[in-house]
């Protein structure tokens, strides 16, 4: 159903070409009929979603719709919560991540996560970023130095901290801390980066820097971002998935979702009739 009740879609960030044909990109992450329970309470119902490699997918929906829960399934962070249960297939690079052969520690190096509230460790900036590689066994100091520099450059933080890598990470500003957390995630050389509302605790200037960063990173990494900010979702993503009450209502190209949604609920949410 056509609708022009939403304003025209805002311009995308640099690096994200929303009209790009993603069909040539292999599917990196796929869920097939995923159900999820917190104890007796089912919160995800039959979620089936495909995410192409090196694209940005935005998960949107009102609070409590399950988008963050779904995100956490992708690197099995929900395993840390007692009483959770999952069924269905969750494939990362073709491998079902819930099968017994999968080492969850290795999975999490491969699928990184950035959280809503930045959580730098109370250590130096260098040690924060080197933490991931170090616990994986990397001891070569030269390698770590180069890796830290490269990650900080990718996270657009290098120029601000290059002279004070031995300072405490807690002394950075909120926006810098979040970019530090992104650099920290990049240090484990993941292929997929999950972002759970990464900019919601930041001021507008920092938010737009993070969005620009997403635009740069998607050339190399597959990014799945949960956001409650619809303008942000439309700016940074190739594909958008709308969740409501645990069900995936609609998924499609971002431009199509925001100008011409197929489901009425999607349209209602996007036009702000609820949520």
């Amino acid at each position: 159903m056509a609708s022009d009740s939403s304003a025209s879609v805002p311009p995308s960030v640099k690096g994200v070409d929303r009209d790009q044909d993603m069909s040539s990109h292999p599917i990196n992450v796929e869920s097939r009929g995923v159900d999820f329970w917190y104890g007796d309470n089912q919160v995800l119902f039959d979620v089936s979603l495909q995410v192409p490699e090196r694209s940005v997918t935005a998960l949107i929906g009102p609070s409590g719709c399950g988008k963050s829960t779904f995100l956490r399934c992708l690197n099995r962070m929900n395993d840390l919560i007692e009483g959770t249960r999952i069924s269905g297939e969750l494939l990362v690079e073709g491998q079902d991540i819930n099968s017994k052969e999968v080492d969850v520690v290795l999975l999490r190096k491969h699928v990184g996560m950035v959280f809503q509230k930045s959580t730098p460790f109370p250590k130096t900036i260098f040690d924060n970023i080197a933490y991931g590689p170090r616990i994986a066994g990397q001891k070569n100091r030269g390698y770590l130095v180069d890796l830290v520099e490269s990650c900080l450059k990718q996270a657009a933080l290098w120029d601000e901290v290059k002279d004070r890598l031995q300072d405490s990470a807690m002394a950075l500003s909120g926006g810098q801390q979040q970019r530090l957390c992104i650099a920290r995630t990049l240090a484990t050389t993941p292929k997929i980066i999950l972002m759970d509302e990464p900019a919601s605790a930041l001021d507008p200037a920092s938010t737009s820097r993070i969005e620009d960063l997403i635009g740069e990173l998607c050339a190399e990494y597959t990014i799945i971002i949960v956001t409650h900010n619809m303008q942000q979702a439309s700016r940074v993503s190739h594909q958008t998935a709308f969740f409501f009450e645990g069900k995936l209502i609609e998924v499609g190209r971002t431009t199509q979702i925001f100008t011409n949604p197929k489901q009425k609920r999607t349209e209602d949410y996007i036009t702000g009739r609820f949520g």
Partner: protein
Amino acid sequence: MTSTASFTSSGDAVMRRRLLLSTVFRTVCRIAVYSAIFVLVTLLGVVLWLAIGRLTPAFFSRGHSAFPDRAGIQAGIWGTFWLISLTTIFSLPVGIGAAVYLEEYASDTWLTRLIKVNLSNLAGVPSIVYGMLGLTVFVRMFGLFGHGIKLNLLNGFLVVPLPFGKSVIAGALTMSLLILPVVIIATQEALRAVPRSIRIASFALGATRWQTIRNQVLPAALPGIATGAILAISRAIGETAPLIMVGAITYTRICPGGVESVGTLLTDPQRVLSAPFDMYTAMPIAIYGWIRVGPEFTSVAAAGIVVLLFVLTCFNGFAVYIRQRARNKLKW
């Protein structure tokens, strides 16, 4: 009808009563504080005044004597030294390990909950009960060894008597049990103070649970753990009743192992190894003994008290220092 609202407190009776009550309360609180300080200062003052004249270097190089002028705290200091060293070695690893297990690894079963609740109970058990426990388990070992045997270890370099009898190690094990609940609870609190988000961030980077604990949680909790440990050990230093029950001597010159100077400590390994199995006294016990003898030893006892208080002040001061440094370094 009064004119526009006035903000000055007029002769309004209700208002005056409120102000009076407020002032009375403030005065009562002031009196409480000043009384407490007054009592403390008086106590310290009297003790110091009594001890003047006894606090000579000789006081630290002599043990008990029948003559007050020749009595000293040397045996007490060394006994306390060995006691506290061994107590630290036994109680800290076990206590910290138990707390780490309870906080980080154990799932929330009825058993875990039972243990956690009873930890607080254990912390409140009177110390004399631990004394009785120590007597049966460590000093007499349930009578399993009859008249006692001696284990020759390291080619006779080290002789371990079984049961331990009235030795420092029996006292130290008893004290370890005594302060163990305190160490566990303090460590638990320190671990809980580390935000959960730090652990989650560490897991998300592909760390195992042990790596997270070792690299993030424990370093962050260390100041709290150290403070708790130091305070627990301070408590152990002042304990008297359980030690008497497990056989600490009251009047003696004996220093465990015959180690009477720091030099011997560093250069004579055989004495150091035999010290834990030797008889001993401790500072609070020596003080208690002197008070019991009679008025002629009052000043000696006072000098002992000054030394004990000094040691405790140093310990507590160290704990405060660590807490301050932690506050400056870790700002969540």
